[in-house]
């Protein structure tokens, strides 16, 4: 899972695609995942970071992350 190179994101969870003019917003966990994606973390690394930081069932988080990935793909945000 890799963000397109020119995608702009903010700490508040705002996403801007300068190629299409589309903008989106995500919740704080989404914003954190985006920031990890910007650091080029792999899915496994993201799962590790979030699971260690929050009280979350790992398999549930994996499902949610998969959903989030689909949304990012639909929104033309990922490479």
């Amino acid at each position: 899972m890799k963000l397109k190179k020119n995608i702009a994101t903010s700490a508040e969870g705002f996403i801007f695609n300068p190629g299409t003019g589309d903008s989106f917003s995500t919740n704080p966990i989404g914003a954190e995942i985006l920031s990890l994606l910007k650091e080029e973390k792999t899915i496994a690394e993201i799962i590790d970071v979030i699971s260690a930081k929050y009280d979350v069932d790992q398999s549930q988080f994996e499902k949610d992350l998969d959903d989030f990935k689909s949304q990012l793909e639909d929104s033309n945000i990922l490479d």
Partner: protein
Amino acid sequence: MKKPSANTNIVKKKIVVAVTALNAIDNPGPGVAVIRAIRECPDFDVRIIGLSYEALEPGLYMHDLVDKTYQIPYPSAGTDSLMARIIYIHEIEIIDVIIPNFDAELYNFIKLRDKLTDLGINTFLPDLDQFESRDKIKLYEFGQKHGLLVPADKVIYQVKDLKEAAEEIGYPMVVKGKFYDAIIANTLEQAQKAFYKIQAKWGLPIIVQEFINGTEINIAALGDGKGNSISVIPMRKLYITDKGKAWAGITLDDSSFIELARKFIKVTKWRGGCELEIMQTADGKPYIMEVNPRFPAWIYLTAAAGQNQPASLVKLAMGQQVVPFKHYEVGKMFIRYAWDLITDVGEFQKISGTGELQEKSKYDLNVSLN
């Protein structure tokens, strides 16, 4: 050794620029935006002369933008009466540059270009054949010739021809006027209704065009007349009015749009400002839906994004070298708004009665109602 201090007493060139299309209404002309951009250019000290057709064009009353306005004859009056009026205005104002901004008036201004030059009035307009080649009526042929994607169309003069056009093009199709307006029709009845509506407003012919589904992108561009692009700014409409006009938009970073505009300018050797209306399909194909032979109403966004196209056009018209822009700000937005400008009947009377209007304080007309 102390360095000499920079001379801050820079003398700016004083120029007089006449601009049309002051109708900053819900379907706005570009004039007010063009003036705003020119006024922001630090390279010249400008006096703006508004050229208006109607007494209620809002720009006439924007005295911080327009120094003086003169009414000019409607395009249908022809070139002789337009020229006579310009000579009159020029004797008073000594105009350096005229920027016409309406599609319907461009033909007359292009025809008068040499005569204007003889008077010392500069323009930066396309040639007549450049102007006509991108005409809606010839756009498909133009696209075929230059390898540009353009939707299939058919030019018709009679309502009965709609049926045959529909068989070729299919539904939905777009029924368009030769200057403005476009209506999507899903049935023959809808197409006939659209035909009559547009014919009543803009006359014949009517263009029936293939409907292309996708994302609408607009590109403002400035060509130097030698095939070079001075500036290209792509914008996506974020909010569209019921008349299809952008009420908000944002600059984009997509090299394919810039390359497309550069190709258009290169093959046409376009001189002046223009707007390409693009429909990008889901699979990324950019169809040219229309080429407007003048700046769009959102042109101030180009100045805000770092490429002041109207000011560059003034420089080109004055014979100055303009280096093509390389960078602009992506994600720069405009949001249009409505504002009730307050004036007095004295001003309205002045422009209606004399065909001229300048700053309010210059008049002494008091109207009191009991």
